[in-house]
């Protein structure tokens, strides 16, 4: 049971960490809490599902690219101008929730079914210490870890990553040395939404996606990010894995409904005891 619970928890945490990374990237760089990220990700998941019968690779690529464009455009057209006018966290909460309503409405209006499952290939099973696990789930976990490592590497060793860091640490100075901060914000938002889309595709393959999944995934992504220390990528990853474990182990002892109650109660407790999350926030709120 211990090994089973650990592996399931790691996988759940791994998938969860993708929208969490999305939240962390967007918040860490732009300083804007985007509550629509989950709904935008699920919108991409629905696009992938719709195009899936034609070509799997193209479907995934189109879904992820669509989310990148949505993230880029909404940041460029809506969120950055509001931020420049002095918008605060409360205003962004309202704006991004409203944006979430719009994309939830688009999913409802455009796609023929409100509840879908994405049939990604399962790739057989892997046996380990007498326990077998679907290779596909390991791919999902591996993808999450690889994404985290890639983001970290690109932050440290590429020009773009350095301009991200500069923008996140000192916006005025970044502007002064000629960094196109508006473009950096838009790209960060696009990447965050694209990551949420990949998370939604994995989620839709393991479970299913419906109209409320975007909110569930987005809110969950957000609270996991807050627990890890919002804007802190490593904190978000650790927090996602811990919460995945909590979800996995509580599933053995409690019914599904109590599972969510315990999870949220733990998260609230963490916020009360350590208001800045496990590893602390990289931005001051």
């Amino acid at each position, binding site marked *: 049971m211990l090994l089973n619970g650990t592996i399931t928890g790691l996988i759940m945490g791994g998938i969860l960490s993708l929208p969490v990374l999305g939240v962390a990237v967007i918040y860490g760089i732009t300083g804007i809490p985007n509550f629509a990220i989950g709904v935008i990700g699920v919108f991409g998941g629905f696009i992938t599902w719709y195009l899936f019968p034609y070509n799997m690779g193209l479907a995934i690529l189109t879904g992820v690219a669509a989310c990148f464009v949505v993230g880029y455009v909404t940041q460029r057209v809506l969120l950055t101008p509001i931020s420049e006018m002095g918008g605060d966290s409360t205003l962004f909460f309202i704006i991004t929730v*409203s944006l979430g309503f719009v994309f939830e409405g688009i999913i409802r209006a455009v796609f023929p079914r409100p509840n879908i499952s994405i049939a990604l290939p399962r790739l057989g099973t892997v046996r380990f210490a007498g326990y077998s696990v679907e290779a596909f789930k390991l791919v999902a976990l591996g993808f999450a870890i690889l994404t985290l490592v890639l983001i970290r590497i690109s932050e440290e060793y590429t020009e773009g990553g350095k301009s991200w860091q500069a923008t996140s640490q000192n916006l005025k100075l970044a502007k002064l040395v000629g960094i196109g901060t508006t473009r950096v914000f838009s790209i960060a938002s696009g990447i965050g939404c694209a990551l949420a889309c990949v998370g939604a595709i994995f989620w839709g393959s393991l479970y299913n996606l419906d109209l409320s999944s975007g909110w569930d995934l987005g809110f969950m992504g957000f609270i996991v990010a807050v627990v890890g220390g919002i804007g802190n990528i490593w904190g978000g990853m650790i927090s996602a894995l811990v919460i995945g474990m909590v979800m996995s182990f509580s599933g053995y002892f409690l019914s599904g409904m109590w599972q969510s109650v315990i999870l949220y109660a733990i998260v609230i407790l963490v916020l009360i005891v350590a208001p800045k999350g496990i590893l602390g926030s990289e931005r001051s709120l």
Partner: protein
Amino acid sequence: MRDRFERVLILLILLAPLLFSLRGGYLQQVSGYVYLFLVQGYVAWFLFFKSGQPFFGYSVTMAIGAYGTIVPALMAERYLPLFMLASAVAASAVGVIIFLATSRARGFYVSMASFLLAILFPKLIEALQDTTGGRSGLYFSGLSGPLGLRNLYLLVILFTVAVVAFFFWIMNTRTGRILTLISENERLAQAVGIDTFWYKIAAYAIAGFISGLGGALYVNYTGFVSSVDIEVFSTVYIFFIPLIGGSRVRYGPILGALFVILVPELLVPVERYMRIFFGLIFILVIVLLPEGLAPSIQKLLARARRKP
């Protein structure tokens, strides 16, 4: 003079739907909902916008009032008023506990803790479905039994007017002025020797109590409550009321409540696209009218008056 005129105008606007009680039916029912959400909207106006407390658990305090009334009343209906009062006290206590528990944190984290509670609470109601009815909900006749629907509607209006009058009154008292100072510059308030801690507790206690009592009245008016009614979006809608209407103006939440409740009603013919329009309208109002509807209407009227 202008202030008194504004107060009388607000009172008249609030009392105007009394006319609906003559006809009953759909308009009476919908306007009753507007009033019940207006109460919650004024709670958000008072606590968030006027006292500067970053609280997002309005659906929780409202739900405590609703469930704290209906669950015991199904066992002993004759003590209904007592249960309503007790549930309001419980909601007030929960508000204070949330404040105390998050007092070490700063703004955004307090918002997140109370917002998470708003996500958690419906799940707790579903987990306790044997007692609370979960998503299927609980039904009872409540006050509509002894009072009748029309009198209950009148009670809802009177309660709303009393709540609005109370908030206007308290904001004019010393306590209200100190709360405004805390929201604008807490350090300054502390520097001049004000113990802001107790004033903030008072704000949470008052807001929790009124929100809880509003929830108790809500469940009596609807005769039903389920976990779906208190989902996290209720808190979002409640918060939208003063924000959309205009938090700087006293009658802003009235316009906000009309907007938040009536816009979905008007969009029923295009139900499939409702969320798209709803979200877009909110974004447009916030972007184009950042101070809310009421101040913008005020400016338009002033401009129209100036023209010969």
